[in-house]
């Protein structure tokens, strides 16, 4: 049996031309950084605008009448209430109450002939599980198309809107989580005002054949710098955003993951999505552990799988994502902590539970904190 060859995105040649350091990720060869480096790319994103190639992610469309209602069997979010040209963050849930993936769902409006059209963006590492699962659960009359002939770019940062102002003026009025069809470099694109950094910005879906032209056009705009997966990870960590496989996975339910805000009252009452019973039971009983932000008191980063200890040295949790936050100029992390200790505090607060992180065999003091570590700057 031969190994599956590593896949490339439509921008592979461009990344190499720009001098990117390429690494394997979810079966793809992806840029982890460009010559500027992770720190510079991260800081540039928060100060101006950075362009990320996220074409490895899964893009798919559900066509047909009643698409939103059908999808509600698989996700606990309000899909039927998702207005045309709006997008929502939601979860694919498992019978166990665990999480199969997190994803964005956009409503691209109804067609007289084809019924509803929903556009989904799922994680690269999970698309081979998500898409067959969704397809298997669609009733007759509904079809799932894997849009694997499309690239996905993310332009993120406070200057993103002004960059797009000359190229696609209609985006200026797009609200956060709004979606629009635009033309860039002659290509018919789909843009949403959203991202994975906590900054203002756009995610742009482009036909693969035209992706390089669009990327070059965006990189030619003043103040736009290419950024890789290294910066993407440090940005989302500072923003307190979950990474599937680290902070959420098949063993975490939305209650302990602090993602119940994605499940509105109507859906909880109807309890008609996969995994509804165990999720609602966990909500009623209260979870044994909770996902929280964790700030080491010193300068040493604490990475994934670092044990979290109480003041007696007993393990009470584990870091799921951790590293150094360039904008914070300090280490930061997320992890699960026993619920009674998952209380954000301040150094001055006497009720703060004393926690430590076991790094290289030594307990380093840390505290629970609310996320994000760096405030979100979504344009609402």
């Amino acid at each position, binding site marked *: 049996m031969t190994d599956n060859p590593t896949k490339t995105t439509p921008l592979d040649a461009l990344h190499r031309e720009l001098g990117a350091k390429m690494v394997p990720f979810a079966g793809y060869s992806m840029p982890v950084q460009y010559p500027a*480096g992770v720190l510079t790319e991260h800081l540039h994103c928060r100060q101006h605008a950075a362009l990320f190639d996220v074409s490895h992610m899964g893009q798919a469309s559900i066509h047909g009448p009643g698409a939103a209602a059908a999808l509600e069997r698989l996700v606990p979010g309000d899909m039927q209430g998702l207005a045309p040209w709006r997008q929502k963050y939601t979860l694919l849930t498992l019978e166990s109450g665990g999480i199969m993936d997190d994803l964005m769902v956009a409503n691209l409006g109804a067609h007289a002939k084809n019924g509803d059209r929903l556009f989904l963006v799922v994680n690269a590492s999970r698309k081979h599980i998500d898409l067959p699962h969704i397809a298997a659960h669609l009733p007759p009359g509904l079809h799932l198309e894997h849009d694997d002939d499309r690239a996905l770019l993310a332009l993120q940062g406070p200057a993103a809107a002004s960059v797009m102002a000359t190229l696609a003026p209609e985006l200026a009025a797009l609200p956060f989580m709004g979606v629009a069809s635009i033309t860039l470099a002659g290509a018919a694109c789909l843009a949403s005002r959203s991202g994975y950094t906590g900054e203002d910005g756009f995610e742009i879906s482009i036909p693969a054949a035209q992706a390089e032209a669009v990327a070059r056009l965006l990189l030619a705009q003043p103040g736009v710098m290419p950024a890789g997966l290294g910066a993407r990870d440090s940005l989302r960590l500072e923003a307190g955003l979950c990474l599937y496989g680290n902070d959420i996975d098949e063993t975490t339910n939305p209650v302990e993951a602090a993602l119940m805000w994605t499940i509105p009252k109507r859906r909880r009452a109807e309890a008609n999505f996969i995994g509804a019973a165990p999720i609602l039971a966990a909500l009623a009983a209260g979870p044994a552990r909770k996902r929280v932000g964790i700030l080491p008191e010193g300068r040493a980063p604490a990475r994934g799988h670092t044990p979290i200890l109480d003041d007696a040295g007993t393990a009470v949790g584990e870091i799921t994502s951790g*590293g150094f936050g360039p904008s914070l100029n300090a280490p930061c992390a997320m992890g699960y902590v026993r619920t009674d200790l998952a209380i954000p505090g301040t150094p001055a607060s006497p009720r703060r539970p004393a926690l430590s992180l076991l790094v*290289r065999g030594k307990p380093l003091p840390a505290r629970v904190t609310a996320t994000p570590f760096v405030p979100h700057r979504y344009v609402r």
Partner: protein
Amino acid sequence: MTTLRYTKEHEWVRLEGGIAVVGITEHAQDALGDVVFVELPEPGRQVDDGEAIAVVESVKAASDVYAPLAGRITESNQAIIDDPALVNRDSAGEGWFFKMALADEAAFHALLDEAAYTALLETL
């Protein structure tokens, strides 16, 4: 007589008046990326050749730094604790990690010379 040698773990060692100054090479700092944290050994500590005694962390990952020779740590570089990016900016100079008194100076001369280290880099 040259006073600069290298290890297979991408450290440089410079002998200065009986004391060995140790840092990581240009290749190592470039491979690591932006350094954000270093942990250095305490002065006075006795270390063995090949013992992991320091840590250098980039945004993405942590790496061990090893004692290139047996000896006693005499000094650690506070400058790179205060400004970890100095390791990237000047890995061969101001970005040094620690200094040590050697148990056996002959062992220093047995480390890789410039040509041997350059040849090693070409195999990577």
